[in-house]
């Protein structure tokens, strides 16, 4: 018999019916809640019981609440004296259990419970989702439909772009569907109460929510598979590393919370520590290349981009002694190389030929900026090119890695142009090849 069990709790925070039913059925099977997680909750084996569970919405409830704060909380005290023990606390809600079948329910006023639910959701659930909706809408637009970005054919023709756009779209749909589900449920609950009926269940809406969430997770892994299919193993590993980093940061945050609770630290201290550690870990995992670049321990090769116009973030694999470290770094739009590229319209076509083109950049030709023929990168459009790591570091023929600003501003610009001219000369000799308005 397993001593512990992890159960996927597919619920939205306002879906108290699901939490209560799930905990009741697990208690009947002989499992009691040990800790709550992001998606999986840990249960400990015990003897089966007929415990009752109730979720109470309290906007002041915080998962960083210390033991001392819990003991001094008047609500928890009321519940304890009425036979209800607080077994878990999440942001905006508390979960109580009782062994006493005759204990008065924690909530005896459905209307008040619904009002508390709305207050809690307004505190965390709704603002957070709205924020993510804006963020992923920008990513989606930037990675698929805006300005110089590829058209639909480019997206379809490029597995990575396609999965990125679909991924962003799926997250958007998930977030919006969560918000719609809540609005529908809340409106129905309010109407039912006004007519003297009970607050409705959430079964259908829960199914919609779980389905969309599953699609998003599936697309995340599809994205990784696409990277593997395209031969970008480092990218797939980087995706997995970022995912692992994210999970590790959350797990560490949980450990800090547990430690803080045991040692009676204030919720403010626990929360601050959690945020600080999580932020440091997340930034480190997502920016290992940036750190590597700043400290000079690694160079950047290979790259891909993701659209965040205000950051112009460029994701690329960083290697050190041929070992991939990780990826991602940022550079500003007013970078010298950005201006240089715009001014000189440097480009290279899919077949490897170069041009210093005067034609307008367009989406149906894949451009490649290759300052040195030994560096091979393919970008699906100019926007990706301008945001790529290619401008930041260059691998020269002699194997040296130079920073792009130095390259252009001081001495290596000539070397670059020389290499382009050499390549153009070589290509001009090839029969049957002509591209646009190569100069």
């Amino acid at each position, binding site marked *: 018999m397993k001593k512990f069990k992890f159960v996927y709790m597919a619920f939205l925070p306002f879906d108290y019916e699901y939490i209560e039913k799930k905990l009741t059925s697990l208690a009947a099977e002989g499992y009691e809640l040990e800790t709550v997680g992001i998606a999986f909750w840990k249960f400990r084996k015990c003897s089966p019981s007929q415990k009752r569970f*109730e979720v*109470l919405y*309290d906007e002041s409830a915080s998962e960083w609440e210390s033991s001392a704060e819990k*003991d*001094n909380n*008047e*609500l928890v*005290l*009321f*519940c304890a*004296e*009425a036979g*209800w023990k607080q077994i878990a606390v999440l942001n905006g809600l508390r979960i109580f259990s009782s062994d006493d079948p005759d204990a*008065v*329910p*924690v*909530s*005896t*006023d459905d*209307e*008040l*419970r619904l*009002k*508390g639910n709305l207050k809690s959701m307004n505190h965390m659930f709704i603002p957070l989702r709205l924020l993510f909706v804006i963020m992923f809408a920008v990513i989606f637009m930037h990675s698929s439909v805006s300005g110089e970005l590829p058209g639909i054919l480019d997206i379809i023709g490029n597995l990575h772009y396609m999965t990125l756009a679909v991924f962003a779209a799926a997250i958007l749909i998930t977030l919006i569907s969560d918000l719609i589900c809540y609005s529908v449920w809340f409106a129905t609950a309010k109407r039912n109460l006004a007519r003297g009926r009970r607050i409705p269940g959430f079964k259908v809406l829960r199914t919609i929510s779980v389905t969309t969430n599953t699609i998003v997770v599936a697309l995340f892994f599809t994205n990784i598979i696409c990277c593997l299919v395209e031969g970008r193993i480092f990218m797939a590993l980087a995706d997995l590393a970022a995912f692992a980093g994210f999970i590790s940061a959350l797990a560490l945050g949980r450990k800090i919370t547990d430690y803080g609770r045991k040692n009676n630290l204030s919720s403010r201290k626990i929360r601050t520590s959690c945020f600080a550690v999580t932020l440091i870990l997340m930034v480190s995992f997502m920016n290992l290349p940036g750190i590597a670049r700043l400290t000079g321990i690694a160079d950047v090769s290979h790259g891909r981009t993701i659209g965040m116009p205000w950051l112009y973030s460029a994701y690329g694999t960083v290697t050190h002694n041929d070992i991939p470290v990780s990826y991602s770094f940022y550079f500003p739009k007013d970078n010298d190389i950005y201006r240089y590229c715009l001014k000189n319209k440097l480009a290279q076509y899919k077949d490897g030929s170069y041009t210093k083109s005067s034609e307008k950049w367009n989406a149906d030709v894949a451009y490649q900026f290759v300052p040195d023929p030994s560096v091979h990168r393919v970008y699906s459009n100019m926007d990706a090119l301008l945001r790529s790591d290619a401008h930041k570091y260059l691998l020269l023929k002699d194997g040296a890695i130079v920073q792009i600003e130095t390259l252009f501003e001081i001495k290596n610009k000539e070397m670059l142009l020389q290499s382009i001219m050499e390549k153009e000369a070589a290509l001009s000799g090839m029969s049957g090849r002509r591209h646009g308005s190569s100069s």
Partner: protein
Amino acid sequence: MAREKFQTLTEQMFYILLCLKKERCGMDVMSAVKEMTGGRIVIGPGTLYNLLDHFLSAGFITETRVEGKRRYYVLAEPGIRELENECQRLQSLISDFKRYAKGGIEIEEI
């Protein structure tokens, strides 16, 4: 539940305010209401906590002292007025009921 700024009081609200005529802590309120109503009205701890919070914000009750982990409350002047208004409203309902349902006055006659 507070219906639009306490225009009317629910039974639970009514009895909480009523039993706070005497200074009581939260748990005493729960048992007092149960006793007063012979178990007809029971107030859950979560509901009680929320209602006390609402009443405090509205100034219907005031916190008198803290003893250990217990907080004590007592009815304030606005709370007394609210109870009296509710009582008056209920009395109007009863008197209308008596006049029209029991007193034989037909509504069509009005």
